[in-house]
């Protein structure tokens, strides 16, 4: 640096200073100071005249701008270092300030100084090498001794460093600001004096505080605002009021809100050079986390409860060993918990499972599948601690427990169930056996009547054989004989309505047409909920029993008829005997003998009558024993035999008897049948009108589906109301005729014994009568159908 030795022109005059020196010493000292100031100053000093021509340029200026003083002094203006744009702007600003136009040039500075304004402005100087350098330029006026302005002095300080610091500071500030705004936490900075120095948007949002409250730095209002939202304001009160807490401690706590939100609050002091100047508070909304943790705790709690209270054994495993087990497990495996935990999976099972594979192998497979996310459910054989085995149902599920993926195994001891299943199977077997071997046919029907199942006996009944391949089972109703189908349908409907056939008899038809009498019993089948789903029908072939019952009924009816008749018809002679005996006694007492003989005769005759009746009864009662096994009987021959027998009576009455030649053969006892025909012919002879020759016809006709033999006369006829009673015991149409009157009764019994029917057809008195009888032959059906 070249030091210019010429001092400033007005320096001495314009720079007052005091010192303890006097005179020339004083002058020398002040000159030295001036030189020091000017030459050694770190600031660039540039003096100009009023035109701007540089008059002084100190070493610092030389260094700052890259020009030497010698090059500039007296030659250039100071304005050349400035940027024209800045100068123009400055001039404009000045114009505004002064209120009058200012020319953008050096004159601006002069004007400024003349206006008494001190100019401290930042400018950009251009160095000789073209690089800009920021400076702070202070311009004052240079005055002469009279105080007149003769020039300007500018002191320029290089503010490059300062600019850099400012920029760095700005950058840091903006970074800080961005951070403040970007953080999710709400931040509030409060100075020690209680002033809100900073806050971010999140704080506003978190606390839902109006911006104005914060801008107004109204700490009380803010505290109120906050307390209102907390669920336990009292507890928070003191702490909140200490927003301007000056302690150096960090604080932390959790705030719970009335609306369920939960905040974490953290604060730390703001230190500058080790001194507390304020406190920074940060708030974080941890509601979600809080409740997640709470719910996790709850669900963990729930899990624990289930774990402990379940009726099944629950074990937790990581896939290799058991991590935990509940109390039931201890009971089920007869093993304390600590002997289960840590054991490998195979520990609680036998070596092998029923299929022969090794338990550990299968277990590993299943566990792996469960870990992969597929829940497993299967039956298993487990082993207790003592080695005993039991059946179990196992289910494996994967789930997260306290952050770890584990398998939860639920084990149910199904020994009881297995036993029940076995028992049920046995019962079913038994049931099946019963059904298959039952002598009754069993049908299982749907509610529509469709046959679901048909026992072998049922197949036999309806198809003649149980060996049939399960046929296309027709609707059960079709199995009923045609005649009874409506009744069968009615019974089925009743069953559906809850009215079951109990011992109902129905004629049913087998596939080959053979009919049989079936006894039906039925019941409605309901499922577990009580809803009907089908009908169970039990069918018993009671054809034989039906016949026996009919026979019995007939016998009973006859017995009743019999008993009635006996008591009645025997009573008549008894009355006679009693009456005349009484009369005899009276006469004897009175000594009368006139009617002795007559009365005694009456008594004897009556007794004889009784005896006859009783004999007739005996004959009738023995008909059953007297009927021989049936054989083929030629009716033609039989009729001929009868006519031969009665030839005498026929001739006596001069009766004409016509017998049809082609009588169909019958099936029965020839002797008994002959008695029947004989009886009928004798009656016909008897009941001819007196005086005329009886005309008798013997033949056969078709009645319904059967052949009926008849003996017809043209005699006195029988009135319809007597058509039944004439067949009764001892009933005689004409009491005067000979005989006891059992002939027709006997004939009836014989015919009925053969399974046939005997009846009379007669229009009435004088219209003749036709006695007809049928003999069914081989078919065993009873006539009472």
């Amino acid at each position, binding site marked *: 640096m070249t030091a210019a030795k010429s001092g400033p022109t007005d320096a001495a005059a314009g720079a007052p200073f005091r010192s303890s020196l006097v005179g020339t010493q004083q002058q020398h000292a002040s000159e030295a100071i001036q030189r020091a100031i000017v030459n050694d100053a770190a600031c660039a000093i540039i003096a100009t005249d009023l035109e701007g021509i540089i008059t002084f340029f100190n070493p610092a200026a030389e260094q700052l701008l890259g020009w030497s003083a010698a090059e500039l002094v007296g030659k250039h203006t100071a304005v050349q270092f400035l940027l024209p744009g800045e100068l123009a702007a400055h001039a404009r600003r000045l114009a505004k300030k002064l209120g009058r136009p200012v020319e953008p040039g050096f004159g601006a500075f002069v004007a400024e100084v003349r206006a008494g304004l001190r100019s401290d402005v930042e400018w950009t100087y251009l160095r000789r090498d073209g690089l800009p350098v920021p400076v702070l330029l202070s311009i004052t006026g240079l005055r002469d001794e009279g105080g007149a302005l003769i020039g300007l002095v500018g002191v320029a300080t290089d503010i490059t460093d300062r600019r850099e610091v400012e920029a760095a500071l700005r950058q840091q500030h903006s970074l800080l600001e961005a951070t403040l705004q970007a953080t999710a936490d709400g931040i509030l900075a409060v100075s020690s004096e209680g002033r809100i120095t900073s806050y971010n948007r999140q704080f506003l949002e978190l606390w839902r505080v109006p911006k104005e409250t914060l801008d107004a730095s109204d700490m009380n209002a803010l505290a109120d605002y906050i307390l209102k939202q907390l669920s336990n304001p009292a507890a928070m009160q003191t702490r909140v009021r200490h927003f301007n807490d000056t302690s150096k401690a960090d604080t932390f706590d959790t705030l719970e809100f009335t609306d369920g939100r939960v905040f974490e609050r953290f604060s730390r002091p703001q230190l500058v050079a080790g001194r507390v100047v304020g406190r920074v508070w940060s708030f974080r909304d941890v509601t979600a986390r809080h409740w997640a943790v709470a719910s996790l705790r709850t669900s963990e709690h729930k899990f624990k409860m289930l774990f402990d209270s379940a009726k099944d054994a629950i074990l937790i495993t990581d896939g290799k060993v058991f991590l935990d087990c509940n109390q039931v497990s201890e009971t089920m495996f007869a093993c304390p918990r600590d002997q289960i935990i840590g054991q490998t999976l195979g520990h609680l099972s036998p070596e092998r499972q029923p299929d022969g594979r090794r338990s550990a192998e299968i277990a590993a497979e299943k566990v792996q599948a469960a870990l992969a996310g597929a829940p497993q459910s299967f039956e298993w054989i487990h082993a207790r601690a003592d080695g005993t085995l039991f059946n179990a149902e196992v289910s494996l599920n994967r789930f997260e427990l306290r952050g770890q993926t584990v398998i939860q195994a639920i084990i149910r001891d199904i020994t009881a169930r297995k036993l029940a299943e076995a028992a049920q199977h046995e019962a079913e077997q038994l049931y099946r056996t019963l059904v298959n071997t039952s002598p009754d046919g069993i049908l299982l029907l749907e509610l529509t009547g469709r046959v679901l199942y048909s026992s072998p006996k049922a197949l036999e009944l309806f198809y003649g054989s149980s060996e049939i391949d399960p046929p296309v089972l027709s609707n059960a109703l079709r199995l009923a004989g045609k005649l009874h189908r409506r009744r069968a349908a009615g019974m089925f409907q009743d069953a559906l309505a809850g009215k079951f056939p109990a011992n109902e008899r129905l004629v049913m038809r087998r596939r080959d047409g053979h009919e049989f009498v079936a006894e039906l019993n039925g019941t409605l089948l309901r499922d577990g909920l009580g809803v009907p789903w089908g009908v169970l029908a039990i069918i018993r072939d009671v054809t034989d029993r039906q016949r026996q019952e009919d026979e019995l009924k007939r016998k009973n009816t006859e017995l009743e008829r019999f008993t009635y008749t006996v*008591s*009645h018809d025997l*009573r*008549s002679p008894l*009355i*006679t005997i*009693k*009456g*005349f005996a*009484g*009369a005899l006694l009276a006469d004897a007492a009175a000594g009368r003998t006139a009617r002795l003989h007559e009365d005694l005769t*009456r008594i004897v005759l*009556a007794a004889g009558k009784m005896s006859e009746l009783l004999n007739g009864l005996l004959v009738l009662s023995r008909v059953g024993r007297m009927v021989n096994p049936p054989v083929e009987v030629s009716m033609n021959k039989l009729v001929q035999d009868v006519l031969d027998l009665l030839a005498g009576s026929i001739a006596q009455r001069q009766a004409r008897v016509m017998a049809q030649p082609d009588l169909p053969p019958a099936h029965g006892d020839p002797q008994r049948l002959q008695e029947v025909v004989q009886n009928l012919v004798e009656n016909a002879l008897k009941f001819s009108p007196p005086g005329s020759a009886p005309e008798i016809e013997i033949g056969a006709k078709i009645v319904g589906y059967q052949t009926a033999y008849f003996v017809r006369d043209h005699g006195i006829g029988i009135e319809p109301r007597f058509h039944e009673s004439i067949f009764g015991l001892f009933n005689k*149409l*004409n*009491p005067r005729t000979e005989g006891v009157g059992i002939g027709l009764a006997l004939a009836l019994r014989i015919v009925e014994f053969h399974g046939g029917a005997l009846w009379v057809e007669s229009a009435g008195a004088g219209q003749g009568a036709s006695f007809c009888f049928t003999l069914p032959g081989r078919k065993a059906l009873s006539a009472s159908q």
Partner: protein
Amino acid sequence: MSARTLNILLVEDNLDHAELVRRTFEHFPAANSLHHVEDGEAALDYIFGEGRYEDRLRFPVPDLVLLDLRLPRLDGLDVLRRVRSHPSLHGIPIVVLTTSDTERDLAAANEYRANGFVCKPVDVQRLSHLVQELDIPGPGGSNLPPDGDSP
């Protein structure tokens, strides 16, 4: 005034029983005239005065009918019904003769509209009681010798 004879119609098909009834009326404490028919149709003819019984002088309307139930040709019940539906003669006292207590009970239960039921053999006491009960207009107890009659 002369004692009026009690006219009785007996409808009975058993001749022995009819004889017993006749003998009973021989000892009856009142004059009576017994007429006997053997079947229901004859009974009706007699009661209604029809057929061969037109002559009411010979065959007066009976004061009492003794009716056996089981008759040929027309049932005792039918006789009862026919008489009961006759315009003028429906009120004739008819007593039914039965062969047993059971029969009597049955007949009564079946509402045979008879005036009474009597079991055979007929007892004279019972009969006179019955006649008294029925308040049959007739002779007031006379001891005239019985006048046996037979048609």
